[in-house]
């Protein structure tokens, strides 16, 4: 049995997904939004009282949290899995708004406990993990570094260093030209007593049981900074897996979309980070366009085109300004683990000619994360194309792979907060 009552199915309840759902529902479509998190809001608004979340609640959309889309068992049908549910859902129109994940960079010691993604640590702290009094080094690339640092500081962390791999000149000219100038200045103001170092990056994390210090490099200078946490953020990687599974084409690692945010698969739209890392403002605009298009209101969609063009320009400048420097490719030594799930060191991967060969012979990318973490790493290190997407998109209990037609039980998890 396949649940078939929705006009528009939205996957992902971040800014892009919420905006799409609002537009489609406000145009009278029956909309359901699925997210693997129990709460809507995506990476930045989760658990907050944001006006877009309130608008979403009032829009007439249905929200199903704590459920993940893991497969497209047949064209036009999604396989949805939750803690105690597993069912098939048919869509007339699909909006893919699956966001992005953090990009990791391997260097000696990066797998030590205490070396974490800056976004991951933020999420942890938001769920109650204490950070007060802890020494935190924040390192990586891009504007999220600044936001993460300000957030850690607000939770009582002692920020001992902020290492931005980007050269000052590039960072500055981006900040001055961007629409986010004021935001950046405000953030910097809050961090004015923190050593903010440009052209600076971690080369090694050291410690016995967990990280105790990080060795940083800036130009020819190298020094060791003691810390309790090293929070890294080397940018984001678009979550394109669902789009790929549905058959959408990619360009440069992002989902290809047309003016209406429609992918190369008819009736399937994509908005937000999967189409390229551009931040929350672009995600919202693309989401609104996708929502209008999916509801058939092409006219309304076109009202946002001009704004979108501006933010796409912003995206291009963002990506150019914070592009990762080639020196980072030299960071891992032969023994550095690249695939954390399967414990595969760099020296075993290097002799191979492509991802598939490395994967078959070393098990790299075969563990529970299925290459979500090490795939972008080897892409950066070796330029290999990592393109094998197989169901399930995330690990599921075996029994959830069995079709039992339990669609009816899905309703119990619906919420109509509005």
């Amino acid at each position, binding site marked *: 049995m396949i649940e078939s009552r929705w006009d528009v199915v939205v996957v992902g309840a971040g800014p892009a997904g919420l905006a799409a759902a609002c537009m489609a529902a406000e145009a009278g479509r029956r909309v359901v939004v699925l997210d693997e998190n129990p709460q809507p809001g995506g990476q930045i608004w989760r658990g907050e009282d944001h006006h877009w979340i309130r608008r979403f609640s009032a829009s007439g959309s249905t929200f199903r949290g704590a459920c993940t889309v893991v497969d497209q068992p047949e064209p036009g049908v999604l396989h949805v899995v939750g803690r105690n549910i597993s069912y098939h859902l048919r869509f007339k129109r699909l909006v893919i708004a699956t966001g992005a994940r953090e990009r990791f960079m391997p260097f000696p010691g990066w797998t030590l406990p205490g070396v974490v993604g800056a976004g991951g640590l933020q999420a942890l702290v938001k769920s109650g993990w204490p950070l007060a009094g802890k020494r935190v080094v924040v390192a990586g690339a891009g504007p999220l570094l600044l936001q993460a640092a300000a957030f850690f500081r607000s939770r009582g962390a002692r920020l001992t260093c902020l290492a931005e791999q980007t050269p000052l000149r590039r960072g500055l000219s981006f900040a001055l030209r961007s629409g986010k100038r004021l935001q950046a200045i405000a953030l910097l103001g809050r961090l004015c007593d923190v050593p903010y170092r440009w052209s600076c990056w971690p080369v090694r994390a050291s410690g016995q049981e967990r990280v105790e210090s990080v060795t940083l490099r800036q130009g020819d200078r190298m020094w060791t900074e003691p810390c309790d946490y090293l929070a890294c953020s080397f940018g984001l990687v678009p979550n394109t897996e669902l789009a790929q599974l549905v058959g959408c084409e990619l360009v440069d690692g992002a989902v290809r979309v047309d003016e209406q945010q429609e992918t190369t698969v008819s009736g399937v739209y994509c908005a937000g980070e999967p189409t390229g890392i551009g931040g929350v403002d672009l995600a919202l605009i693309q989401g609104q366009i996708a929502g209008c298009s999916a509801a058939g209101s092409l006219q309304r969609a076109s009202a946002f085109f001009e704004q979108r063009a501006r933010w796409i320009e912003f995206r291009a400048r963002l990506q150019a300004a914070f592009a990762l420097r080639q020196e980072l490719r030299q960071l891992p030594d032969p023994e550095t683990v690249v695939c954390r799930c399967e414990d595969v060191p760099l020296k075993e991967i290097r002799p191979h000619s492509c991802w598939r060969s490395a994967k*078959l012979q070393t098990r790299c990318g075969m563990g529970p994360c299925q290459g979500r973490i090490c795939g972008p790493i080897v892409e950066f290190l070796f330029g290999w194309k990592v393109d094998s997407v*197989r*169901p399930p998109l995330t690990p599921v*209990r075996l029994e959830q*792979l069995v079709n039992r037609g339990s669609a009816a039980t899905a309703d119990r998890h619906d919420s109509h907060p509005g």
Partner: protein
Amino acid sequence: MTADVIVIGAGIVGAACADALTQGGLRVVVIEPSLAVSGATGAGMGHLLILDENEAEFSITRYSRDRWNQMAMEMPSSLEYERCGTIWIAAVPEELPLLKQRCAFLQSRQVRAEILDSQQLAEAEPNLRPGLPGGLFIPDDAILYPPAAAGWLLKRAEQRGAAVLTGKRVTHIQAWGVELEDGSRLEAHHVVCATGMWTPQLIGGLPIQPRKGHLVITDRYPGFVRHAVMELGYLKSAHGRESESVAFNVQPRKTGQVLIGSSRQFGVTDARPESRIISSMVQRAIDFMPRIAQLSALRAWTGFRAATPDRLPMVGPVANRPNCLLCAGHEGIGITTCLASAGLVSAFILGDRPPLDPKPYAVERF
């Protein structure tokens, strides 16, 4: 330069041929359009087992399995070889006589085998559903990781001087050698065609058909399954000609992961995993091992077996194709049987005594 032998295809069969031929002192060139082991060999389960549906199947699997076990000492750990043994399960009491008959046959041929009663079976595999009538235990069957095994055989051949040309596709086989897609020619005294399911593209008129199979792998649960465990009904699925069937077949990987098979489909060429098939395959596994339902599944994928009408490989000279030997059609047991096939191929070329009677596998039997 003229090579002694060109081997077309770097799956495990081509790799085993290159290994055997270089052992015989021949200069070998292996040609592979894609990556080594990107075909069926990169997809299969790696169970090294004896099957005994008929004399020909028994001889080829028995010879090969024992050869693998002899080679175990030389294998690097990356092959994940483990002599875990096979347990065949009777699902219903009516299947017990067949189990016993197979056991007696194997024992009469000096293959170690024993019958497990219901309780022994439960002790050997505590996660099986209680009350199964019994099993047949074949302790010397083993498992390994096929891509690494093929890679190892290929590397041994290279160390003896074989050249492996990847990224080159053979378009025609001639009496003097092969023609490649890029228009170039390579000469050799003999050509061995080890191209699995792609063979009909090079040699027309052969009854080799792709037979799709699905597999699912779990996260690590060391000790959850201890042997390669299969239902007796697997034989019906494997030997039958039905267009679609599934059977209970699980393997403990050395990593602690559980590999779950297996399905068989004719007439499908789309490689995408089909949720309908996965669903019935996993349901079958849950029927036999209820607690498996709770394990976390990481990935599902598919592969194609190169199936012949009698499920035996086609190994030997090809009519009207001078200097060409075929070595393909290994269906669902090519990881096991590649060693016997390679032994036959090298005996043909070197004029040695074959390791087993080649007749049942001769190309002209169809």
